[in-house]
């Protein structure tokens, strides 16, 4: 049963009602009901192929639901024009597993790309090639907060993996988003680095009041950092509850019949 939120108190950022997607006749996701309130931090867990990425894809319109509806920031994604979709997405950040940085740009330029949606094509070009002092200052301040201000003008691919993660977070914050959607951002890093990234990300999201939805492979990390967990199995939500309520047995069962 999906958890019923006290709607009167909280603004709902993301609302999925009976959402479903199928690829070539195979149901990747079926009958999903889910609501994410403003500033909430939730984690999607489940075995590979259970539909975690698909669910995140529905939330910023990279995928469109075939059934029911998906509302983000009060707007039904199926009803949006291309322009409205872009405007909506300006408030959403997407962080893929490989961070999606441009390796041969400087850190400053990668962070400036966070405003790509708001600036438009030529605005972005101007910002990258003729960066204003105020923009550079803003980016430097963000990097300072994340602990790497001296890397401002370095080429991004010369940074260590951990530093690149911080650049990705700086880019996300520079976008000034309502919500951050992250798809297994720590899947390919060592445990220590994974932990520090999660600390950073959940910390800044809490400070800024940004909604955070993340999918994770590591159940322990999910339990440690997120108050609310959503268990996915074969395209269905099997539980949606607070991390404290989640039992080891539930987790064992969640992964027992997966593809792994």
């Amino acid at each position, binding site marked *: 049963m999906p958890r019923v939120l006290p709607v009167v108190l909280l603004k709902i950022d993301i609302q999925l009602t009976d959402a479903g997607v199928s690829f070539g006749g195979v149901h990747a996701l079926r009958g999903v009901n889910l609501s994410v309130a403003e500033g909430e931090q939730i984690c999607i867990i489940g075995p590979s192929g259970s539909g975690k990425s698909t669910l995140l894809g529905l939330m910023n319109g990279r995928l469109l639901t075939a059934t029911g509806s998906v509302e983000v920031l009060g707007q039904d994604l199926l009803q949006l024009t291309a322009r409205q979709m872009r405007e909506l997405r300006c408030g959403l950040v997407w962080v893929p597993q490989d961070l*999606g940085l441009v390796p041969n740009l400087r850190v400053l330029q990668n962070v400036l790309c966070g405003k790509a949606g708001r600036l438009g094509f030529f605005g972005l070009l101007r910002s990258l090639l003729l960066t204003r002092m105020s923009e550079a200052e803003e980016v430097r301040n963000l990097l300072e907060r994340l602990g790497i201000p001296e890397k401002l003008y370095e080429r991004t691919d010369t940074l260590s993996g951990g530093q690149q993660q911080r650049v990705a977070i700086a880019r996300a914050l520079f976008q000034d988003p309502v919500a951050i959607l992250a798809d297994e951002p720590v899947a390919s890093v060592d445990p220590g680095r994974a932990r520090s990234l999660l600390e950073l990300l959940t910390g800044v999201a809490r400070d800024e009041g940004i909604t955070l939805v993340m999918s994770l492979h590591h159940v322990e990390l999910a339990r440690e950092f997120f108050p609310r967990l959503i268990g996915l199995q074969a395209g269905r939500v099997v539980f949606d509850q607070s991390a404290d309520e989640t039992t080891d047995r539930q987790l064992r069962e969640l992964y027992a019949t997966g593809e792994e």
Partner: protein
Amino acid sequence: MKELSRWRNWLGSRRLTLLAAFVLFVVGLLVLGARLGDLKPSKGGLELAGKFLGAACQPALGYEAADLPSTTPPFWEKVGRSLVLTLRYAVVAMSIALVGGVVFGILGSRAWWPALNQRSLSGWVLLWVLRTVRIVVRGTATLARSVHELLWALLFLTAVGTSPLAAVLAIALPYGGTLAKVFSELLDEQDASAAGVLRSGGARSSAAFFIGVGVRTFPDLITYALYRLECAVRSSAILGFMGIPTLGYHIATAYEDGHLREIWTYLYVLLAAVIVIDQWGSLVRARLSRPKPAREAGRAEDSVAELRRKRPRSLVLRASVVTALVAVAMGWMTEKQWQSSLPAERRQANFERFLHEVIPHPVRESGNDWSEFGPWLKERIWPRGMVALHRTFHIGTIAILVAGCGALMAVPFAARSLAGRDALGVPGGREHVSGLRAGAGRMLRMTALVMRSIPEYILAFLLLQVFGPTVWPLVLALALHNGGILIRLGSEVVDNRPSRAGQVLVVQGGSRRSSFLGSLLPESFNRFLLLIFYRWETCIREATVLGMLGVLSLGSLIDEANTRLFYDDMILYVLMGALLVFAGDVVSDLLRLRIKGGAIGSGVHSS
């Protein structure tokens, strides 16, 4: 089902590839009637070769002829002018090809397509429009490069007369086509993750593509363009054989006058130019892929202005950009007259006559009765055209097989990771031959550099004088040039891919040879194959023109038709050549896709 998969496994095996190569080699030799005995130079050829090699040690520093008219410019001025002209045509052609290549490259790729909703009618229609554009653009680019630059030159020169513009366009067209193809592939293979992030953050598809994919692909594009510039200098030089006064022209005339030492002067100048560009390219590539750290590291308390002042900058890259821009500007501006010196009406008339004479002559003479076309075509294609086409194919194929085998044997000695004292990075201990081995490796790399720097056409021209008119000079010229390229690329494969299994063999006491044969070669076999197929395609392309030097193949038919002013025949054979190159291109692409897909052998990771 099981039977089938076993059969396919066997089909896809290395054994079959090697067997097919061997069969092709033997069949090719039979078709070409090439006997190994012909490799013995004639007596006169041997004498000439001796004199020629002697001349190599003492290139001319002044005119060899004694009695010169007083109007003759100083020797070095002549050399300098022809070098500048060669470079100018190459640079201007590349500037056109690069613009065309980028535009066509983007249109020919899928990477820039916006995310389309195929469920809506407009999305579906747009998708089909985009697909059609892509196919048309790719087809045009492939056609442009299926015709060799020498043949484009031949066509332009006959159609509009000798002019710098004809020379430049002859290079720009096929090069633009090649750049377009390579650029499309680079874009489509590029990791689109950054573009996905940008688009998911509300950016337009155009911005997401430009920054997320385009900027990422830029270093590869530049690296490749510099390599093509090097090729363009070679192409520009051999346009001299068509009467344009670049370096090749002076090589050909010096040969006719028997001035062997002058030939070497021009050859050395060409070599130097090509090698300088080659080395420049490697330097730029190194800086783009492994940027040097800043001289002064930024500190956390630095202000933006201070950090900016300390930012890592590359003098090499900056100087390269300035050099390139200046070279292009100079190339365009220093030519006073791009058109030929004929008056406009004459040019127009010549062009119209050419267009008229391209129509098959029975059709022309019978007042555009196209029923005459069939018999005319049949008479030319069968058997002459087909025999020539067949021979052209085998010349290219045998050459690449020879080059490939040679390169495979040379790579273990040329690769830096094997030629050094510590094979594959495993400390090897003291030995008295290590210096010798490193020296041999360096010599081999130098030789490969020289081999690939001389244009095949000039090599074939010189070898023909030594060996006489058999196919061997053509095969050898192609094999030498491509062998040089394959040695370099093959060594890079070994050097850039540290082999664990190879290291294990060395640590266990294996020799370099055993680690190469036992692990490096099988591990990289498919990458070598990819390289060989990639060069095979270019060998076939080159083979269509080498025949113009007088060995029966498509090139010789084209040349013959041209001298007899049978432009209808000429166009036909040019088209046959284009068709052959086109087919080779498609087959090579398919085979490479299959290899990348892991159909042959195993363990391929395309990158």
